[in-house]
């Protein structure tokens, strides 16, 4: 490792962003994108823990077919809380708001994002939304499921739907602010010489993600307003009694929520491209096609929402159209998987923790993607829709994909964030535990779904018990895999070995400045002369 060499020729140290102030005020009123990234990290860790606890309770309940641990009301509130918090308060902000905020300006050689004040505002909006959502949970919870389907949510549910919807609504504006900031940042603040074809693939994927954030989120906002008005007013356009249509809600909701799935996976793909290149010490195979596939996913992702509605009594023909488009959106994802595999060819591969997470991502995302093909096939979807097959599928994408990528990215950029290294072997073992626990938790759910176990079931017929027990056992292993990093990363933050500017020997502007990053990122604006991942034949940057 070139650690010693690198650090010895490091420039005289400017104060790092961590040393720029130690008061609470210096954190809460910071305009520094790096500190805002850290604020997001703290917040989403809390929300993740709450949502994961809800999942743990659900898995314990599902050990036995009878509803013996919690009541049906509680169970329904648990999965709603799990879904809402995980989707809007963990997955969507995870890589974009934490790693994106921290890394994007460093990667493009800028001092900050385009609108630092807006960036801080977006964190406050996020917190306001999170606090409202938490309030609605503490006040008694919501039992609508994260999808808020009408007329259940607008008329029949007795939960604190309004507070929850308001929380999501406000957090949505935080998403919009972040996406807008990234779009303008990537367009306007790139270092001299950093052309679009030299852009690291993480930036391409973040750009694509931002487009979705900006164009999809407003539709969710207005849909929630319509739903809330209907609940408040007793009148609304989704109400069949007045001639409204409950399916209209689903159209509007999925117009946002399907692209939102890509908000939750595209950044992960970007992280994987970065880490694979860094630890194979080689450019990503087919750079242009991989970059273009991110954009293709972002755009095609808006055309497929109807595949959530194949059995909803949507028109048969619309179903056929949406099915065809859904197959097409799978093509760019497949391109990425093949390109990643080809990237390994003729590399100089090492197996540090981020690489293990990236390899885990490729495996799990492939399974998630392929089962997505099952769900796009109309006839099969009719059978497995709203069963545990769907649960397994999207957890393979969201947890196996996005959470793996988030953990991988966190480990990869941890030296830049904290200036220190974590204990490598502990981290590798945690990654392995996560991978095993994950598969044990979710693979049985594919089988359960095919056998017909519906989702959101508090009690279930006895023949499903064996597989549910397996799944719960896996969940307990997964919990260990998630808890470990909290400890060793926390320890490393204060006591870890100091990392040089570039501990992995990777390319990319973020590795050209000190670790932890200086307050203003770069002493002089860097100039870029090569494409991304310019490793030489020996795998050196």
């Amino acid at each position, binding site marked *: 490792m070139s650690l010693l060499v690198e650090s010895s020729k490091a420039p005289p140290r400017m104060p790092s962003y961590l040393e720029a102030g130690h008061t609470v005020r210096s954190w809460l009123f910071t305009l520094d994108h790096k500190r805002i990234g850290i604020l997001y990290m703290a917040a989403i860790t809390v929300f993740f823990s709450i949502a994961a606890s809800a999942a743990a309770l659900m898995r314990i309940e599902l050990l036995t077919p009878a509803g013996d641990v919690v009541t049906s009301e509680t169970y329904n509130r648990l999965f709603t809380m799990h879904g809402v918090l995980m989707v809007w308060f963990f997955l969507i902000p995870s890589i974009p708001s934490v790693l994106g905020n921290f890394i994007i300006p460093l990667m493009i050689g800028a001092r900050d994002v385009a609108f630092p004040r807006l960036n801080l505002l977006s964190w406050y909006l996020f917190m306001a939304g999170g606090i409202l959502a938490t309030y609605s949970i503490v006040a008694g919870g919501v039992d609508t499921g994260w999808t808020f389907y009408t007329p259940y949510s607008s008329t029949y549910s007795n939960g604190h739907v309004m507070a929850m919807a308001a929380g999501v609504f406000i957090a949505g504006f935080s998403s919009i602010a972040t996406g807008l900031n990234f779009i303008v940042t990537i367009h306007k603040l790139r270092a001299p010489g950093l052309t679009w074809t030299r852009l690291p693939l993480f930036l391409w994927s973040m750009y694509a993600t931002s487009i979705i954030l900006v*164009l999809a989120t407003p*539709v969710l906002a207005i849909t929630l307003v319509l739903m809330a008005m209907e609940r408040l007013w007793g009148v609304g356009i989704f109400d069949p009694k007045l001639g409204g249509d409950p399916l209209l809600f689903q159209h509007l909701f999925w117009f946002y929520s399907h692209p939102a799935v890509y908000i939750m996976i595209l950044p992960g793909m970007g992280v994987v491209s970065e880490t694979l290149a860094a630890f194979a010490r080689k450019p990503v195979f087919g750079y242009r096609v991989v970059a273009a596939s991110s954009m293709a996913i972002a755009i095609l992702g808006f055309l497929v929402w109807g595949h959530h509605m194949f059995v909803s009594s949507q*028109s048969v*023909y*619309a179903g056929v159209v949406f099915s065809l488009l859904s197959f097409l959106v799978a093509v760019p994802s497949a391109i990425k998987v093949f390109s990643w595999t080809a990237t390994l060819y003729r590399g100089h591969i090492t197996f540090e923790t981020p690489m293990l997470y990236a390899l885990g991502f490729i495996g799990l995302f492939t399974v998630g993607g392929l089962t997505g093909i099952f769900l796009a096939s109309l006839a099969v979807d009719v059978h497995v829709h709203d069963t545990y097959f769907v649960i397994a599928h999207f957890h393979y994408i969201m947890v196996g994909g996005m959470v793996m990528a988030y953990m991988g990215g966190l480990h990869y950029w941890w030296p830049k964030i904290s200036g220190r290294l974590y204990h490598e072997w502990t981290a590798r073992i945690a990654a392995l535990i996560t991978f095993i626990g994950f598969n044990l938790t979710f693979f049985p759910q594919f089988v359960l779904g095919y056998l017909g176990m519906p989702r959101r079931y508090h009690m279930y017929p006895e023949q499903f018990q064996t597989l549910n027990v397996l799944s719960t056992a896996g969940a307990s292993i997964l919990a260990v895999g998630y808890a470990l990093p909290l400890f060793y990363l926390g320890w490393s933050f204060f006591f870890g070995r100091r990392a040089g500017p570039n501990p992995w020997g990777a390319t990319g502007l973020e590795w050209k400045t000190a670790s932890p990053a200086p307050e203003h990122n770069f002493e002089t604006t860097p100039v870029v002369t090569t494409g991304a991942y310019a490793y030489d034949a020996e795998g050196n940057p």
Partner: protein
Amino acid sequence: MHSAAPAKTTLFATYFALIALLALSAAAAKWQIGPLWNLFIALGIAAVKTALVFLVFMQLRYQRGLVRVFALAGFLWLAISGVLTFSDYLTRGWTP
């Protein structure tokens, strides 16, 4: 990018065109030629008015390509939402 801005006369000309279109729109609504035609005329005039506001008042015709793309993106995505939603509603009655 500030140097190229509409002249005062352009602004006033645009304004009077907008008011004329409004008058036309109001008059056309009183002149019954079938609900569908009336709707098309009303929306067509609204589209022309919006185009005028975007191009002149919002100075889109003086902006570089990127900003134009962003200005159009919103409308394009709105069209996606409308067209695909209606792919359901318009074919609901059909049976295979």
